């Protein structure tokens, strides 16, 4: 098994054979995860697939049954006190003291970090509030916050200090579309500052939009991991022809070498051939096929996921 130190080019998170067993149930089963420094790493999987259990092991909250985990080059949970000051985390939604104001919640969490300078505490809390757009509501009691505001405050707590690694578990949960966009742009901004972002989500869209790398989990196992472009490329786009003359279209396409043809009511789809698509279109028109639509549908990460698992994404483990 490779072991790495947290060198600039190395992995920020590295696990080998990481396993957590609850009774007979394997929540996480032999996970070998490698998160490159500087990446925005999407951690995908349906609800109940073991994502949160993995994150809890990485953060030293629960002890692995077997296997090892290294964060920032140090073993967890052994080195929590040296590793975690450099890690900001949002785990399974925000948790706040309802009887404290948003600002006081941040001060409370900051005072729990023995490496946080109390002299800059207030200024850092204000900066974090500003960063998540919560300055106006900072004096309100947290129990009066909406879910979206709580989520923002949780993010602010993760941003109290400059971090090397941000672990964000479902950060856009409970946010409206505008809020989701804001969080995404915040994540991009942080990543461009050099922070590695480990982002778990069950929303494929989200991962596809912000992540450079991704890993997919189902039922406690890691199915694949790698750069998002590679994963999505695995599931090819499909050539789609919309026409009332499906029979003729299918025949012409077959002659041109289009494989895996599927004919539906008014559409013919297949794997794109190696030839120029303009020629394919011309051939269809020449054969008298009334072409109403023609193009290649982009493959999404979701297609890749379905191709990998052979099942829908919303299946819980």
């Amino acid at each position, binding site marked *: 098994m490779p072991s790495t130190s947290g060198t600039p080019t190395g992995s920020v998170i590295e696990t080998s054979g990481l396993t957590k067993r609850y009774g007979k149930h394997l929540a996480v089963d032999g996970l070998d995860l490698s998160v490159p420094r500087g990446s925005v790493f999407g951690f995908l999987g349906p609800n109940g697939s073991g994502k949160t259990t993995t994150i809890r092991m990485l953060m030293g909250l*629960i002890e692995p049954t077997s296997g090892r985990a290294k964060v920032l080059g140090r073993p967890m949970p052994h080195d929590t006190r040296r590793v975690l000051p450099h890690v900001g*985390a949002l785990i399974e939604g925000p948790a706040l003291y309802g009887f404290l104001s948003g600002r006081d919640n941040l001060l409370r969490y900051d005072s729990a970090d023995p490496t946080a300078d109390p002299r800059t505490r207030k200024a850092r809390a204000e900066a974090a509030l500003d960063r998540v757009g919560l300055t106006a509501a900072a004096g309100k009691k947290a129990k009066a916050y909406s879910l979206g505001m709580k989520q923002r405050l949780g993010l602010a707590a993760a941003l109290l200090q400059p971090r090397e690694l941000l672990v964000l578990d479902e950060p856009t949960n409970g946010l409206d579309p505008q809020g989701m966009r804001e969080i995404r742009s915040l994540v991009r901004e942080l990543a461009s500052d050099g922070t590695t972002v480990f982002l778990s989500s069950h929303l494929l869209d989200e991962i596809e939009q912000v992540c450079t790398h991704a890993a997919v989990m189902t039922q406690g196992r890691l199915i694949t991991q790698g750069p998002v472009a590679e994963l999505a490329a695995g599931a090819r786009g499909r050539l789609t022809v919309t026409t009332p003359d499906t029979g003729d279209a299918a025949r012409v396409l077959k002659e041109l070498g289009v494989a895996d043809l599927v004919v539906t009511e008014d559409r013919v789809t297949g794997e794109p051939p190696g030839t120029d698509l303009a020629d394919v279109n011309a051939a269809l028109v020449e054969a008298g096929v009334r072409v109403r639509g023609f193009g290649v549908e982009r493959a999404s990460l979701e297609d890749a996921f379905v191709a990998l698992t052979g099942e829908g994404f919303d299946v819980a483990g």
Partner: protein
Amino acid sequence: MSRAEVTAGAAGASGADGVRAATAATAKETDTGHPAGPGSPPRPVRLAWTLGLLRSELSITFRRWRTLALLAVLAAVPVLVGIAVKIETGDGGSVGGGGPDGGGGPAFIAQVTNNGLFLVFTALAATLPFFLPMAIGVVAGDAIAGEASAGTLRYLLVAPAGRTRLLLVKYATALTFCLVATLVVAASALAVGALLFPLGEVTTISGTRISFSDGLLRALLIALVVAASLIGVSALGLFVSTMTSSGIAAMATTVGLLITVQILDQIPQLHAIHPYLFSHYWLSFADLMRDPVYWDDLVKNLGLQALYAGVFGSAAWARFGVKDIAS
């Protein structure tokens, strides 16, 4: 479109290859022993900074309405006792009208009409069996379990508060609450006593007379001993608190244990275990009113409290140190 040449089936393989290549690359840079990364000089931990959590804990504990309500109830007890004594003795009769101890009621109650200072001793004797330990049970029982049920425990631990440090802070806060709660009872009793009854020289249990200022000093000493008597319950509550993720369950269990112990202490057939019950020597604080002070039971009480703190404190530490935080 060159990427598109890869079939869906090969995607997993190519992804895995990428990972293997990455791990192989990083494997070359094995253990240079560097901390975190560049741009992250290890931040120093300073003693004054680590005390920030204790300050934060104390401030949020004493800002909570629940804590203030508990203290208000405790402060109300001497007021009620004082008024009751005043009404009953308003016609010139004596409390209880019984023997030299006043027959019934808490210790010292018969002397209250002669000297308001005795209301301090009476109030402490009245609140020590249940009110005070119940309030401590609520605060100590909620210490860890309350954070767990609110979900804030996981954020404190990834801050990282450190499990031992968090436990020490929680215990220190519980002990501070013991002291504050006891002093609230004593101060309230002193105020009510001064208001409703005369103050003056104090007659000790042994019959000697000491000056009022000496009496005040003894009252303060008694308050401290009463606060120290609650060390055991605090440790027990903290231990229970590490066993569950429900604040309510932890508080109820602690208070339940307290009541059980108090009942066991009343059953004569169980006298063999009585010396080991944390509440057995509680009322020994009255011995401070003897002249000279009778120390035996006081020392036994403090020793027993230290024993409970040691045993249940270690148990809490052992439990919390390895506990999976799944809430």
